[in-house]
């Protein structure tokens, strides 16, 4: 019995040793892949690889040609022209976000008057209209009031005592008016003009102060968010208006 037990442990250990030996053997005796090709075989392989390279280059070239062909087709097609025109028109109508040099006007109540107990009045639409007109006169290209884009059909009016711009009510102060001019030079000009503008005085009468700021970086004016409704217009008949 004792001998049997002894043999068992001995056997187990020899199994482990055998296992370790085999693994070590496998690890060390990794078949070394030697390059046994002679010059001619190497040459043949090189030629094969060169041919492959040539083929790949040809493929690349044909694909590039195809791409350029498609691009020129796209450019020459009427669709692209239409797309470009549509984009231009959209930008002009105010349906795109605009970045550019410009100024920011901040309308806020006069704090000294607030201390004296005067109630905060809202901005009257007439004043705003006047301000917008003045800005347009001095070379503003795009205007937004409280992040509402002002376009040609924008209405600024008083509805039940609230000043509204296209349905967006202005009831919080300060009100930020962003104005983008054509370029940096005209933005500078606009800034100077607004600093001495008369409308600031008129705002002052309403207990409001207009601060003119000219940021160094570009300012961004959001696109017009509502849909533009045109009620009393319809496309002209091409026969009546002539083919143009």
């Amino acid at each position, binding site marked *: 019995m004792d001998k049997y037990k*002894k043999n068992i442990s001995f056997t187990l250990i020899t199994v482990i040793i055998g296992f370790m030996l085999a693994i070590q053997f496998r690890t060390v005796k990794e078949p070394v892949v030697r390059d046994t090709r002679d010059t001619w075989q190497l040459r043949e392989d090189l030629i094969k690889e060169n041919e492959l390279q040539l083929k790949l280059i040809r493929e690349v070239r044909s694909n590039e040609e195809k791409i350029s062909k498609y691009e020129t087709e796209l450019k020459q097609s009427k669709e692209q022209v239409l797309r470009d025109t549509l984009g231009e028109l959209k930008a002009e109508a105010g349906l795109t976000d605009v970045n550019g040099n410009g100024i920011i006007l901040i309308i806020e109540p006069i704090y000294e008057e607030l201390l004296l107990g005067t109630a905060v009045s809202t901005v009257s639409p007439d004043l705003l209209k006047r301000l917008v007109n003045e800005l347009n006169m001095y070379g503003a290209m795009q205007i937004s009031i409280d992040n509402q884009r002002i376009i040609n059909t924008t209405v600024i009016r008083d509805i039940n005592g609230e000043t509204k711009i296209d349905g967006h009510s202005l009831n919080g102060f300060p009100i930020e008016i962003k104005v983008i001019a054509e370029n940096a030079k005209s933005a500078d000009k606009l800034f100077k003009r607004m600093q001495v503008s008369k409308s600031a005085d008129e705002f002052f009468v309403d207990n409001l102060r207009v601060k003119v700021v000219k940021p160094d970086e570009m300012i961004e004016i959001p696109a017009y968010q509502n849909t533009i409704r045109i009620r009393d217009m319809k496309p002209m008949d091409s026969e009546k208006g002539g083919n143009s």
Partner: protein
Amino acid sequence: MWLPVLGLIIGVILGLLTEIKIPDEYSNYLSIAVLAALDTLFGGIRAQLQNIYDERVFVSGFFFNILLAASLAFLGVHLGVDLYLAAVFAFGVRLFQNIAVIRRILLTKWSVIREKTEKN
């Protein structure tokens, strides 16, 4: 006596059949462990022939030697000294001594048997 040999063969077959491969960084450790295992094995055989075999000594020696050799190699790697050479040297010397003793014992046994047969 045939059972340990069978075990060795089974172990080798198992090792060859499994797709285990030791990464190159660790092959050092395995080789030193194999050396320690072989040393213990031959020590065990010698002890058996000298009739001083103790199972506890054998089994504990087997695992302890492997661990010691591997940790020595590990320490050597981290100290930047080839300490595993010490283990290789020690195990190598002991391996030779053990095998020499085994050979002598077998030789004397064999000569005794031959004398007996000649006498008969």
